[in-house]
């Protein structure tokens, strides 16, 4: 798991290589650490985790700003707290 600061108020979490439940677990734990308004981009290569994270964000009131696929099998989700 790699958690890096990109710039002010913006972070990146790379959970590629992980299988359930680690991507969704680490994503939510890292989001918990952020302050309101901060943005985190998550890189995931586990499709079922993408589904769980999407729903978890909805439940917590986080906003998914963008979802794209930088390469085959990888999803990048930009989430704002």
């Amino acid at each position, binding site marked *: *798991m790699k*958690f*890096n*600061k990109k710039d*002010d108020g913006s972070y990146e979490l790379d959970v590629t*290589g*992980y*299988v*359930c*439940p*680690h991507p*969704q*677990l*680490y994503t*939510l*734990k*890292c989001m918990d*650490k*952020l*302050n309101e308004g*901060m943005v985190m981009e998550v890189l995931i*290569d*586990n*499709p*079922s985790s*993408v*589904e*769980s994270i999407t*729903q*978890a964000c*909805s*439940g*917590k*009131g986080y906003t998914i700003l963008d979802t794209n*696929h930088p*390469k*085959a*099998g*990888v999803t990048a989700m930009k989430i704002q707290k």
Partner: protein
Amino acid sequence: MAEATSSSRNKVYALGVVGFLAILSILYYLSAPVYIYIIVYMWFGFIYGALQQYGRFCFASAWRDLIMVKVPRMFVGIMMGLMTLSIISAGLMVKYPSFYHPSPIGLHEVIGGLIFGLGMVFAGGCATGSLYKTGEGNMVSLVVLLSLSFSQAIFVASPIFDPIMDAIHATGPNSVKALTPDTWHWPQYLMTDKIFGIAEGQHATFIQNLIGNSLINTILIGMILLIGVYIVVVRKGFLKQRGAKMSQSADGGEVKMSLGDDVAGFWSMISASKRTTIAAVALGVVAAVQVFTMTWMRNDYNFGDAQGVGNFGLVYALNPDGSRRAVGDGASVGDWPAADPSQSTQPKYKVNPTNNKLEAIPGTGGNMFDPGYWYITTQEAMFAAWVMDKTLPESVTGNLKAPHYNTDTTYPKAIQEQLPPNQPENGNRYFGGAGIGNGNAIPSPWLSPALLLSIGLILGASFLSLWNREFKWKFPTKELALYAIGGGILMGIGSRIALGCNIGAFYTRAAFGSWGGWLFFFGMGAGAYISAKVVNYIANKKMTKQLEDMDFDIEL
């Protein structure tokens, strides 16, 4: 441009998977027309795999994500699929009254479910989830599958577990230990049979099946669970967000929540993941279609009857005089492969009380694991058993082919005394009650219909993930390998104790009216709760360690 090229390449690979299966299908059919039965099993597996991949359908997620991240997506999906299959099966049970053999109900389902649930969270997927994820290129899931398969076979082969298993399997109203092939079907252990007092040999009507097996055993219990999940997990957050929005619209005025808001909340929970719900309902329909198809084919090819009793192993069975044995009029025997002594077993016999003569017990002899519906771990156990049987000495594997069934004290002595010499006992409870002896209980993998379903499932997921550019090779780190092996071992042991996994011991049991399926489900939940806590603890420690070394403007 590069992305378009990659997308085209992936689509070619996806079509290559289909092409491979098509060639395999043709080769099987050319080998013997009756092998179309195996091919159809495989293609149903392909459809299951594609649907599961589409819907991200994994039973582990149902309990795990509910507990760990408060996401009810898969819990909802499973209930939707269960209800769908259950409603359709009410009709299937009228058309083919004996297609389903309810397993004995007992503590073994709770204990097996608990151990299975423990394992599936560590493994990152259930038994069928690990199959489809392997198809996505996830080699961690392949490690799970191998671990799950061989742990089952080692468990069955190890005599030290027999006394424990005999004790566990002796609990409940009907003991696994007392089962014989002609009593494997327990007519009173479906909800409909219990409620309406359906006696052995009688069959329930469609309405009775709908009320007992579908409405009460599945829909009612499923709805109670879904309402419970909504109240405990979803409601607070939903009403808070809804209240905030309504308050904004009311210019900050007071907002009172009503039952209508709860209905909206419940509906939003049900409809949150369209993908999962579509896959769930489709899986339920396909599972029902599979039952109909396999049962019809058995009858058509004369290794099954119109009631739904049948077994692919009969294709290899021999009568006492050495002739091929067919259930029907034998017209289709010409479509069967040549007699294969390695796959054949002699039938088992019982004394007919009317004429005091020995006669073959239906369904024995040429008896392989052929459920005719969606099943997963049992065929994988048999695959690993076959590998062990072929590669290890009998001093190690001997117990693999031992009866695990009907000891002298439970099997009628009068019948035993009249059996031909060296007549094996009545089969291996761990391998679907299949007969032992020369073959069938551990069939050659390429002749095991249920195993071909599992392979089809992997390839169905490969097809769809390649087509949608979601396929990615992923290899385990040391940490993930440990989780996979440990999780697979626990899942393997749990599934043999319960005589099935999340599909065979829960999904199909609960859908077809056996409340024992719910015993496994709740056992799974308890196990998942424990392992979720362990995984969460380890993740917290790991995160704290990593974040401590970093420079953030956030509080740790």
